[in-house]
């Protein structure tokens, strides 16, 4: 069967939640590695901090914020589905989660630029 049966808004929300979760799981070991540099190797950490000041890295951090916000708001959306009375405005909820995620990324990028 083709992917046409998956062509609807809530499936897109599912994909965003799943893919952002996988990417964040891949990011976490790198994050912990940098944290341990701060504790055990100050020179290496300073070198990394200088590298992280590059515009492309800042832009990537913005994407990371969007992923994190997307996963957070997507999780809140699932909790609302499963623990609150049903609402028929599911597409609006998805739009709100996507909007909040991009807004958080934009706020971050505006603050660092």
């Amino acid at each position, binding site marked *: 069967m*083709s992917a*046409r*049966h998956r062509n*609807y808004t*809530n499936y897109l929300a*599912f994909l965003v939640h799943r893919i952002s979760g996988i990417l964040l799981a891949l990011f976490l070991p790198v994050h912990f590695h940098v944290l341990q540099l701060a504790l055990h190797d100050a020179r290496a950490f300073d070198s990394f901090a200088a590298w992280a000041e590059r515009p492309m890295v800042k832009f990537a951090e913005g994407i990371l914020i969007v992923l994190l916000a997307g996963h957070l708001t997507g999780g809140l959306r699932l909790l609302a*589905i499963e*623990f609150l009375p*049903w609402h028929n405005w599911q597409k609006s909820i998805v739009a709100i989660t996507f909007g909040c995620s991009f807004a958080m990324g934009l706020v971050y990028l505006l603050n660092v630029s």
Partner: protein
Amino acid sequence: MSDQMLTVLVWRGTADKGRYIEYKVRGLENHTVLDVVTYIQRYLEPTLSYRFSCRVGMCGSCAMTVNGKPRWTCRSSVSKVAPGGKLKIAPLRSMKIIKDLSVEMSEFFDKLARAEGRFHPTSNRQNDFNHVKPDSVKRRLASDGIECIGCGICYASCDLVAWKSNYLGPAALNRAWTLVNDVRDGAHRKRLNAVAGDAGCHACHSQQGCVESCPKNLNPTASIAGLKRVTAIAVLKGELD
């Protein structure tokens, strides 16, 4: 769509050995997909196997995959599902193919039984009628899911069923939810145990494909969410085995 020649690809064979065969059918404005399949079987390919009964959207037996989506073929107008005149018709997903467009639905109905989809009466003919107020909360929750006719469309559209073969599926869990809200039923605890396992309601990812595809406009995701809440409360109260 005015009258035009349709290019129809139809799955022939079984899941292990089969392929799409192309047929040319003259389509009319008011043709349904079932009309097209019937034409092919009557005039072009007499050995084509498919299933139908009522032809008016009451029995659900003509469900097939049409241009990538599971549908009732008797209620799918060719002009709407194939405006370009191309149809690709396959059997329902997640069910074993018997031959061509006919699928084995035993597993689907076995899962209804495994979800305790059977009514367990608490009274008999000697008792007075049960008085259930039409506007009571439980009656309304049961009514929301009670119109399911077991066509298997939601089951075929569900990715979880495809990924996790023992998952009970939206139809079975929706049925269980209607019975959880049936105040006359006497198997509440048994049913909650049946739907609370690994293959039950908590396996649902709330993708809502079942809601998108249900021809009766039912909402199995809401029913499954209700089961998740009820089973979670039952766990906290120590009511599950």
